[in-house]
């Protein structure tokens, strides 16, 4: 049978690849609130799947044609008002449970920049096929790598020199498109030190696959020292 077998497959895959599921292993504020909704939606959807699949399997077994029934005329019914109302109303309830936190979190994520305390501003320029990070506060420029202090809010001002790119650090935050004619903002606060992969998620040409960068989150003290040293090197 296919149903149990595919669950078995899922199990194996989850066990073998768990540590690499970067979206589920969030280390930043934005990714955290996104992950909470992800779990909520999975939980609700698992309920839906269980209901549908158990009815599905039950009906298939119970009402299969058995030998000798070939010339039967089973009773024909038009429908059932109560049942039909049930499966119109219940989805609304599920969607309501899902919609409220969705809307709240969307507003919160999109309007974070105004309420931030001393954010670190970084201007990001995407171009075929690399990323340039500029820290106006320290006048430092980095290519294909970015350094962030832990626990300090960051604002990325995103801008593209050519085609549309998309800025994505799965463990810290979801995507934001990088447009050639308009500046977009992405805000987040890294919560743990470490090295995280960053990538371009919007198809942008021949070497789209190689348009990656490395994000390093360090202790605030280390970050301060680094900015001092980097500043001096620039001079």
């Amino acid at each position, binding site marked *: 049978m296919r149903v149990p077998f595919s669950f078995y497959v899922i199990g194996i895959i989850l066990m073998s690849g768990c540590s690499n599921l970067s979206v589920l292993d969030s280390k930043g504020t934005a990714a955290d609130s996104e992950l909470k909704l992800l779990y909520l939606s999975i939980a609700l959807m698992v309920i839906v799947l269980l209901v549908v699949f158990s009815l599905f399997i039950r009906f298939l077994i119970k009402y299969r044609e058995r030998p000798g029934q070939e010339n039967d005329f089973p009773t024909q019914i038009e429908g059932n008002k109560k049942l039909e109302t049930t499966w119109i109303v219940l989805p609304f309830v599920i969607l309501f449970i899902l919609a409220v936190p969705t809307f709240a979190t*969307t507003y919160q994520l999109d309007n974070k920049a105004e309420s931030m305390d001393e954010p670190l501003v970084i201007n990001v320029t995407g171009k075929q096929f690399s990323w340039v990070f500029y820290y106006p506060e320290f006048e430092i420029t980095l290519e294909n790598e970015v350094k962030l202090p832990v626990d300090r809010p960051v604002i990325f001002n995103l801008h593209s020199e050519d085609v549309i790119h998309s800025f994505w650090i799965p463990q810290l935050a979801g995507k934001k498109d990088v447009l050639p004619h308009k500046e977009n903002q992405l805000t987040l606060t890294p919560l743990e030190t470490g090295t995280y992969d960053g990538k371009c998620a919007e198809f942008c040409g021949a070497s789209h696959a190689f348009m990656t960068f490395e994000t390093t989150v360090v202790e605030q003290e280390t970050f301060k020292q680094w900015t001092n040293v980097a500043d001096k090197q620039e001079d």
Partner: protein
Amino acid sequence: MKALLDYFTSLPSDILLADVSFIIIAVIICYLLTKHSKWEWLWGWITSTDHKKIGIIYLLVSFLFFIRAGIEALLIRMQLAFPNNDFWVFQGDRFNQLTSTHGTVMIFLVATPLLIGLMNVIVPLQIGARDVAFPFMNSLSLWLFISGGILINVSFVAGGSPNAGWTSYAPLALNDYTPGPGNNYYPIGLQVAGLGTIMGGINFIVTILKMRAPGMRFMRMPLSTWAMFITSILIVYAFSALAVALLLLTFERLFGTVILTGGEGNPIIWQHLFWIFGHPEVYIIALPAFGIFSDVISTFSKRKLFGYPSMVFAIILIGFLGFMVWVHHMFTVGLSTNITIFFALTTMLIAVPTGIKIFNWLFTMRGGRIRFDTPMLYALGFIFTFVIGGVTGVMLSVVPADYQYHDSYFVVAHLHYVIIGATIFGVFSGVYYWWPKMFGKFLNEKLGKWNFWTFGIGFHFTFFPMHIMGLMGMPRRVFTYPEGEGLGFLNFISTCGAFLMGAGVLFFMINIYITTRSTQKNTLRDPWFSRGRTLEWTIPSPPPPYNFARLPLVKSREPLWEAYENGYKNIDFIGEYEDIHMPNSTSLPFFMGIGFLIASFGFVFEIWVIAIMGMAVVFLLMGIRSFQHKSGIHIPKEVVMAEDKGAED
């Protein structure tokens, strides 16, 4: 001679292989046609205005495109089978050409026309009509689709394929970033094919509104017909939006307008227009499949469709909401939060009518006598697959979580669950179901089951791991990925699954070959064990050119089933036999297609003489058509009577 040889040796090996195999196949086909003196037979099909023949050509041609785009899918999977892989020539730009044409061909030249073809055969039969409303336009739709299809397929060997993705986003698709003819093929080829689709939509609307048999009220139409009716309305609106978008892109590329560039113009205009088309397109290719499943599940369960009115209402609601959700493809663009929220809400709402449909299908089976023949297996496989695709769809509507899923492999998994799960399973189900009606022969059931299980299991192995790849942070449309992120194992499973699906399609082809070769005819009106419920099962298989010798009188939603329950063998037909008026066959649509093809090449390569010549051919033929006086042919009463009596016995 030497120059020619040099040119050929300079070609990359894959294009050379494509050229050679194309020439070999063309030679073999010409040889076979000549040997069996079948050229005249072929011309008869090309010039036919019979909706059944046109539908069958639609199915055949889109199946050929399906093979081509399927081979591309296998090449994509080969390149992605291992981390840091270098398969053949498909890295970087060549890989992008693969993914772009795979998507474009599968959506526009496979999913859409497969269903249009099937419905072309079935809808007139289901409503008791002798043909569609505009047989000439029907033929023209077909040849415009083939013309546009040839154009997009030929790009591979002539000038390079489109390489900006099947969504062809500006500014990447503009001259600055992808110069050359490659990306010209996309808007021009799709424009030609799209014109044909719009005409097809209008044709279906008028046919269903005006050509129904006496007593076939709206609320008595079979679900396939209902679905195609709503789909046709979606086609007219959505493909018009696409036509505008393609026109802007064409102008931008050929004449340097600055509508879609950043700065003076705005590349987001393309995204809006494309998705205003693109999301209804999902329903254009899903609704007819829903219709097919409704008919199949009801027939093979021996039960009346549960909640018919709510099924119709759900289709209408899905069609309506389908136009109000397009921004969910653009959540990460950075539009205002209020807009995002509105579209998240409408997207979630679509789950309600879809849920109605799923539960009605389940409860149709309850209390029935379910048979597991291949059409039903595909319908059941659809329910299993589509529910998974549906719940991931709801997950994608959760905006903040979508920031993570968007443009990752999670989306690739979701869209294949929905499109293969509904459209391709639907077409397989419908083809197995109506094959005896179309050709008077059953497809082999044993091979059908092999076909279903390999394709179905292969499908889940291919696409289920992609959900997880997405959560591991693998973006779409990358031609390689680094080692040591755990992606290698999942990708390898996915590649194996893809080959299993390929084997499934191979079983299907073998099945068609064996069935066509076999001489065992099945001329039963209702070959599915007398379980038929609707009008198409009341006439001979295959139906005569005029379908109905006398018109049926429809008194209920399921006239044939009602007749069976009352102990009759068939329904009542009304009136006396009379001469039947049928449309002439015509070669004009075929030549108009050629005219468009010539013109399109002119536009693609910006050689204006050729473009003008091609358009001149088109307008000349339109002129001829306008002044042509052809009043159709009459099939005499005696012939009709004799044939009808013959079919009775």
